[in-house]
């Protein structure tokens, strides 16, 4: 049963990561425009690389 000492914190931690990522994606408004997000990956604008501030 000693294994529980590791397993329970691990399961909570992994679940917590999931929750954290969900909250982060809500905060950064990633669910505002689902149709747009789906379409944006198909654009040809930055096929090589996104513009870099160093250019």
């Amino acid at each position, binding site marked *: 049963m000693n294994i529980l000492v590791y397993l*329970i914190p691990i399961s909570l931690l992994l679940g917590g990561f999931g929750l954290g990522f*969900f*909250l982060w994606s809500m905060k950064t408004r990633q669910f505002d*425009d689902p149709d*747009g997000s789906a*379409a944006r990956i*198909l*654009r040809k604008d930055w096929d090589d690389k996104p513009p870099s501030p160093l250019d």
Partner: protein
Amino acid sequence: MTLQPAFPSTSYEAGGMAACPACAVAPSAQSIAALAAGRGGNIMLSLPAAHCAACISAVESALMGQAGVKAARLNLTQRRVLIETEAGVEPASLIAALSRAAYEAHELDAGLLSSTETGRASGDLAMRLGVAFFSMMNVMLLSVAVWSGGDGATRDMFHWISALIAIPTVAFSGRPFFASAARSLRAGRLGMDVPISLALILATSISLYETTQGGHHAYFDAAVMLCFFLLLGRYLDHRTRAIARSAAEELAALEVPRATVLVGGVEITRPTSEVALGDTLRVRPGGRMPVDGVIVAGTSEIDRSMLTGESLPAFAGVGGAVLAGEVNLTGPLDIRATAIGRDSALHRMADLVSIAENAKTRYTSLAERAASWYSPLVHILSFSAFGFWLWQTGGDVRFAINISAAVLIITCPCALGLAVPAVVTSASGKLFRLGLLIKNGTALERLAEVDTFVLDKTGTLTMGAPTPVNFASHPAHLVALAAALAQGSSHPLSQSLAAAALAAGIPPQLDVTEITEIAGYGVQGICLGRTLRLGRAAWVGADPLDITATYLRWGEQTHAFAFEDRLRTGAQAAVDAFAAMGKAVYLISGDTAGPVAALSGRLGIANFTASALPEDKLRLIADLSAGGHRVLMVGDGLNDTAALAGAHVSISPASALDAARVASDIVLLGADMAPIADAMRIAGQARRRILENFGLSAAYNIIAVPLALSGLATPLAAALAMSLSSITVSLNALRLK
């Protein structure tokens, strides 16, 4: 909008549109404030045609290429683009840039659009939902271990960890329920959220007490699961209404209320609310009269169809009176404002709307009716269980409280909370794809009860765009002459005549010279040394017909070109479908008897009324309602708004005036009218599904409540009953075809 109004306890309030239709008829206070304050650094445009990845690149790069644009982002879901600009960038120049890139754009009144507010409220719900989901999964993991035989110290430790997760979750995720329960208690009502909150608090505190005592049963999993399923219902409900609301807000925001005022001969654009009595205003052809007034300069024709339903344009000359809402057709008019604000015709119409609204009895939705007997029943059951077991066990408070908590948890309306939102979400999605926008949560239920249809003519059954019908009775050279003159005018009848002649393969006569438009009368020109005139009967010297027509004078002869308003696509199909359903159909119009009788003959409508005033329309609706009928009103004009507001349920086409759209429950987005018949079918189905869902959750309760009352319910039984009933109810909602 603050968070609070987003959670009306399972009831569907009017859904955050304007506070009342009367307010929406007049420009709203916020939009005026927004105009006065100027437009910060953000411009919002509506792009109805944007639909793909290429559109995103094209629109954003077109806008970024403009001077003064700092950032532009297209939201494909809402078909809007938000542009961050430096000061002094005019929306008009951006709209021009977009139209060069072949995108139709309309300016939106950013002050009216509280998209961020709506988004925040639903984001907040989603966050609470996410937290509830996370802890439901984790607590369930621990609970399964206990159910499958965890004992002694293991069970206690698992209960403690569950408590650690569940207590903060219930406190955070349950807040919408607690807030709404507190509100309804303060108002002296027993809403659905009172038993929910009681169950959440009781389950959590009992479980905590049991855990400290090393007890066998802890209901932490039930508490968070309750939270999750109920929040899911709330979220679906809120999202459906938010989508409808933002689309309706967008329709409203398309009309930015501004007027052109002449000050010392210089044109100044002002918000309509700042126009003073006696100001001189210029109204260009195609513009709408912002206030009531008297014409001081110019001649033109005005279209009164939105106000009265008349299809014939009326002559307007110096000294003539115009009313707010009429459309100027041919020449620029200068008008002196004689009535503004509360005194204008527009506002009198608004007063009529508020009278109709007040006369209408408030509709109690199925969910509200269910909640009204459900909540007291749950409380009575729970308290009597407590009393019975206290007496039976000779004063074992702990045991009695445990039983009454189990009763509360099991009877808690998980399925009931999902029963309506799941069906409404599924049905609204189906209707949206058919081109119908449901603005009000109870509109579907009310639509299912309709037995009488009242239809408006101009702009509703017809497109409000006349087309010539008697080309065949004129020789081709006359049509060619008329077409040559018609090309020189922007009057709707002329434009339609020229287009129809081209379509019929008759090119306009080329040797017509000196074509001039006499605003308010018609067009004249010279051909073969003789004067030609096309226009009003009196000006041309012809005998006027009682149908919409324009007249051509060629030498001594006059010829009439008759027009008929084109039937809206699907109008015939919709009327036939209504008749096939065995419902009564009425046609009521402000237009003259001739065209109304012709149209009702064509569509096969036996009951029709012509020359009806707005009051007459409202009276017809009131009489029908008093006779026990449930009336569906379909209309688009200002003269329909009172009737729309007074009807049991109302529909207006998207081309309708703002005020009519606000007063109606459903907006028809496409030009086709046939989806109304489909909407009736889907509404009937949705109502059946809602009732089935109530039946399903009642069935679960009938099995589970005796278990709970007899003290046999375990946390496992509660979890099973709750999740099974919620899932069945959601699946049943998806069966909607």
